[in-house]
């Protein structure tokens, strides 16, 4: 009997190791979600959640370099607010953040997640645990059991990637701490300010409330953040800022700080230099936004400066790698 248990145990371990290599990854960022588990326990003071707007706008190494704040961007492409809620739950099992910055691009989305790809980016990286089980049960209610199986056991879906493995499947840039490092510059222009207000969808509000409650219960300061966006191609404006205006009122009522960068020009973004495409900042823009965040925290919710503390050497090491990367690629921020 003991042999059977050992056998299954070793089997699970092997499966996990192989799966880490085989699951889908992208090149220029750390594995969005599962690099989180590489950070030392209970040492992250600032946790950032959200979509690509989160990991393109905030660079944890800048927060460390300028302020000594320990942070991690627990973001993923097209991460919806409900996904962020469960990620926060999962994070609280490993960390005790004092501040949570929630990037709110997907406040316009009424469904629980944008697409299977965006959901899988989250679930594939999460470890099997209470939060993940709750999340899958909540989100996959109407799914056929065989498709559900590929969420509980993503191995069966990705095993065929063995033929497509690249070097970044084996070595990934964990020192990016969930942030991005892209330095491409695409000239953009400032969009006109939004004038109307759109009603916030029920699902998004419901899960935002859950996040708020969770933060209150754990003595965490919640801060909402909306990243700047440039004018879309062919002069097509998007209407997402109309949701932000409504959110501004909502946040005001609930007394939740809301860093509406674009409207209030908080970070001094240069639209001709700081964007990599029409909706995402590059590393130059991220530096400015991160600095803005750092200053905001210093003035309103000051955190401990951990530079020099051996318990936080992980961030120091990441910062060294980050600086080396900047020098190697001749990026001067």
């Amino acid at each position, binding site marked *: 009997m003991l042999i059977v248990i050992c056998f299954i145990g070793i089997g699970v371990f*092997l499966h996990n190791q192989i799966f880490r290599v085989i699951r889908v990854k992208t090149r220029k960022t750390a594995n969005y979600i599962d690099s989180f588990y590489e950070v030392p326990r209970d040492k992250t003071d600032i946790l950032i959640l959200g979509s690509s707007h989160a990991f393109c706008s905030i660079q944890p190494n800048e927060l460390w370099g300028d302020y000594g704040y320990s942070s991690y961007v627990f973001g993923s492409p097209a991460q919806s607010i409900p996904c962020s809620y469960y990620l926060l739950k999962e994070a609280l099992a490993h960390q005790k953040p004092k501040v949570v910055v929630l990037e709110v691009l997907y406040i316009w989305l009424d469904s629980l997640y944008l697409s299977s790809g965006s959901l899988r980016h989250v679930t594939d990286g999460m470890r099997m645990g209470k939060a993940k089980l709750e999340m899958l049960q909540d989100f996959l209610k109407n799914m056929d059991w065989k498709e559900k199986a590929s969420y509980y056991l993503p191995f069966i879906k990705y*095993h065929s990637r063995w*033929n497509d493995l690249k070097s970044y499947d084996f070595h990934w840039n964990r020192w990016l701490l969930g942030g991005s490092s892209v330095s491409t510059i695409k000239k953009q222009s400032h969009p006109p300010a939004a004038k109307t207000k759109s009603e916030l969808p029920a699902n998004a509000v419901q899960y935002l409330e859950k996040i708020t409650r969770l933060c209150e219960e754990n003595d965490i300061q919640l801060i909402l953040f909306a990243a700047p966006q440039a004018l879309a191609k062919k002069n097509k404006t998007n209407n997402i800022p109309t949701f932000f205006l409504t959110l501004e009122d909502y946040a005001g009522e609930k007394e939740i700080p809301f860093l509406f960068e674009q409207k209030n020009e908080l970070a001094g973004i240069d639209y001709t230099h700081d964007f990599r495409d029409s909706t995402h900042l590059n590393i130059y823009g991220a530096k400015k936004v991160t600095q803005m965040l750092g200053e905001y925290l210093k003035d309103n919710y000051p955190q401990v400066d951990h530079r020099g503390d051996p318990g936080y050497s992980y961030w120091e090491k990441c910062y060294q790698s980050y600086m080396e990367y900047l020098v190697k690629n001749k990026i001067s921020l």
Partner: protein
Amino acid sequence: MLFNSLDFLVFFPAVCLVYFIIPHKVRYLFLLVCSYYFYMCWNPVYALLMLTSTIITYLSGLLIDQADKNPDEKKRIGRKKLYVALSFFSNLAILFFFKYFDFAADTLVRVAAMAGITLRRPAFDVILPVGISFYTFQALSYTMDVYRKEIYAEKNFFKYALFVSFFPQLVAGPIERSKNLLIQINKKHPFDFDRMRSGLLQMLYGYFQKVVMSEYLAMVVDTVYDSYTERTGFQLAVATVLFAFQIYCDFGSYSNIAIGAARVMGFELMENFNTPYFAVSVADFWRRWHISLSTWFRDYLYIPLGGNRKGKLRKQFNLMVVFVTSGLWHGASWHFVFWGFLNGIYQVAGSWTLPIRKKISAFLHIDENSFSHRVLRALVTFSFIDFSWIFFRASFRQALGIIRTIFHLDGKYWFTWGTNLKDMGIGTGQINILIVSFGILLLVDALKYKGIDLKTWIMKQGIWFRFLIIYALLFFILIFGVYGPGYDASEFIYFQF
């Protein structure tokens, strides 16, 4: 449900768990229910068909047994023969209607057309009930065995029904005999850890054969055969050789999984494949390939026809009847019949040329038992068998086209450098996996040929070694196998909205 499906991987452990918990007395009833459920996953209505065959043959057993008690000898024999005839006729009629009706009707129409008569055939859309060829033969063997007094007539209908429908071997064999399986149904099977491990290991090997080898080989064979008019002789030859292994792995895998699954539950099914491609003659091949079917034909067709007891010519005739029937059993199409016919001809020719071949060997001072001579014979046998596989895989017209190209009778380039092995359906990574797989297959079969059962040897080794082998095989299948929903990179390539 297919063996290589998520359904079966849930079904089987669940069945085993319950099976070993419930009392012995009711186990056969539970297995009967599970077997019918297993069958009905394909088509619930056709389970009635299987039930019908079961009832007919069950009754035949009882009636034959009853007739045997008749004091009048003539009546006794007459009645017994009648019941056998009725059982065979009715079951074969069912088989004919559901499997061969379309084939027979089409043939009739074509023959009539050649004679200038136009026949309109009724439009019956008959779906082939899964496994009908297998369970019908299995049920008929019981009738014959009762007649021959080789088995008692089973009075318990449910036990008999389980014999006909036992799910591990229901849809793809081995075709069992009542003397083996029915007897075991009446025995107790306490849980045995070692027996379970042996069974699971055999199943694992079967999954390797199916999920990795057979699937990869299918990719090549299907690609090449489906575009045979644009292929060189070399490519077709390679694909034909690979097909021999595809069908071996595909069919052999089902047998291995069936035997393994049955063993876990305590049943020993008969062996169905015994290193077939090591055979030194076509006759030898047929003692190693689909053994349960060959022996069925031997016992219930060849021997009743007279076997080899009525002279040499009659023996060849009987052999031809058996193999043409076997061809027909495999599929309701003329190219299957021709395949069977070829295999029969090979053996007839083989037996006629035996004295000449022996004389040549003596003249050249060849030791017939030497390794090199047996390798030669095996290669020659493989070539003949593989040639006949062309008619198994392709329709008659396609087969002729393929043969023309392979034997360079069409004037096209037989071999072209550089691009020759590309576009055969798989890439380099997969070819490497295939090579490793062939290595495993060769090792297992070569050892078996020498009489070494690799399973038993592995089980005797130290625990670290056993774990290593099992994990290696298991993850080999899980990583490189063809299964699962697959993943589409485009699902992930996006960044913004």
